């Protein structure tokens, strides 16, 4: 049997919160890219 590995996340307190932060980041970056697409249309 292997020793249990370190499960503790380095920040945000839990892995679920980190995953949620990544999803929010994805939504924000798609929104930013959509804004970038539209920003220079005349």
């Amino acid at each position, binding site marked *: 049997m292997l020793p249990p*590995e*370190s499960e503790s996340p380095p920040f945000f307190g839990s892995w679920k919160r980190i995953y949620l932060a990544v999803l929010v*980041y994805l939504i924000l970056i798609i929104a930013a*890219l959509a804004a970038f697409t539209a*920003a220079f249309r*005349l």
Partner: protein
Amino acid sequence: MRTLDWFVLAATIGFIVCYGLWKSRKTSTVSGYLLADRSLPWYAVALSIMATQASAITFISTTGQAYADGMRFIQFYFGLPIAMIIVSAFFAPRFRNANVFTAYEYLEKRFDAKTRALVSLIFLIQRGLAVGMILYAPAVVLTVILGWNDQATTLLMGAVVTLYTVMGGIRAVTWTDFQQMIIMLVGLFTAIFIAVYRLPDGIGFTDALLLASSAGKLNAVTTNFDWYDRYNLFSGLIGGTFLALAYFGCDQSQVQRYLTGKDLQQSRVSLLFNAVAKIPMQFFILLTGAMVFVFYIFTAPPVTFHSGNLKKIAGTAIERKHNDAVAVRQNAARELLAHRDAEHQAKFMAAQKSLDVVHKEATQGFNDTNYVFLTFVTQHLPAGVVGLVMAVIFGAAMSTSSGEINSLATVTMIDFYQRFVKRNESDKHYLWFSRLATVFWGIYAVASAQLARGLGSLVEAVNMLGSLFYGGLLGVFLLAFFFPRVGGTAAFVGVLAGEAAIFYTHSTGKVGFLWYNVIGCLVVVGTGLLLSIFWQSASNSRPPASDVPQQPPSPTQ
């Protein structure tokens, strides 16, 4: 290339290789050779994952794609963060806790030997076919742009890659990837800066963005749904998730990277770093292509970027038409910047369309986008920077092919040699065989690169090849992780059915290749589930021996 460029290229590649070999000098066991003794920090693993995925074609072809088709290719990566979350939450812990060297070794623990052998074989076929193309792809472009001999280029790159991969194993591969990725980022930002800096006086970055947008090059998000359209928001989010999930979750060249992390936390952080960093990195690569497009509005572009075809066109009516169309577009661009209204934007768009028609006529259907970026680099960047960008191209080709060669050798050694040929040999013997397998795959890569010469569009070929097999691989791992009642034979048949479905879909030519991963994966999971239900209800209490439902692995197995 000038003397300074040769010096920068040789010094950069020489330093990277020597650094990788120095970092791997203590490798003396199979675990050290194939998994770096699971001791690497997250940042080394993270950049290695990124470098393995970013091949030379990423820099050569993606910039050209933005030049010709705009930035919509970025949507291809929208599914990647979602996939990284799934891999981090479900795949990485299972692989690490099962204490495996390869992802396919896990399948025997969960299912049986035949499923492991089938999936390992699919991996060897798929990546074995791709590794030569990955090595050859930059050589074909360098041949046309710089007149280098493609056979000598692939031989040189293949020899260097094989040397440090054989000597240092995964440690050398990871630390060279780390250095190569840093060089890639430096080269990328230098190219963007110079493309903008070289614009005529009075034309700034926002002017360049207005022109690029007016020509349809800043189309980073497109919401029109079309099964044939490879790059839109929906294919990126759905198809891209499946493709990235298959690549990062089931492809040994990636799985092996995060198995080298010090612990599960380091592995997860390295994956999530990629989830966050990949889209911005692709954005800047594509933006470079868009800026090169603007640069060529004010600096006359060649009739075609393929210098071989250029000689045939010189002095013809097409060349004159091209020159006229370039002049009209340049005037329209200046008018647009002066007035900034819809009327002048329409005139600029019409001028761009006319030039596109002439360009199509000149190239006669030949796609010259792969030659755009290197033409810009070699003809318009200063001495030293050309060498740096060449080091980026070489580094990218080497990092991807070393990762592939290393993973092919690992699967050959762990999933076939150690499993089916010599089961109880010493660690020294397996280390020796691992090095031998690496030499074999290195020679194979160089030899198959010579065969890739006649394959036409290499980017298309590599992408298509991956999508023909990834759906099947992903499906069997989803069965393994999330459907504990499905047994080995059901999974085995499921993989065969999934592959049959993908090849049938491909033969119809009616669906974009990103969707192959979705179709293949769903067929594998559906077939596996149906068969397990059918066999259980048919035999009730006595299912076939190999299909006895197995418990999912315990967290500390």
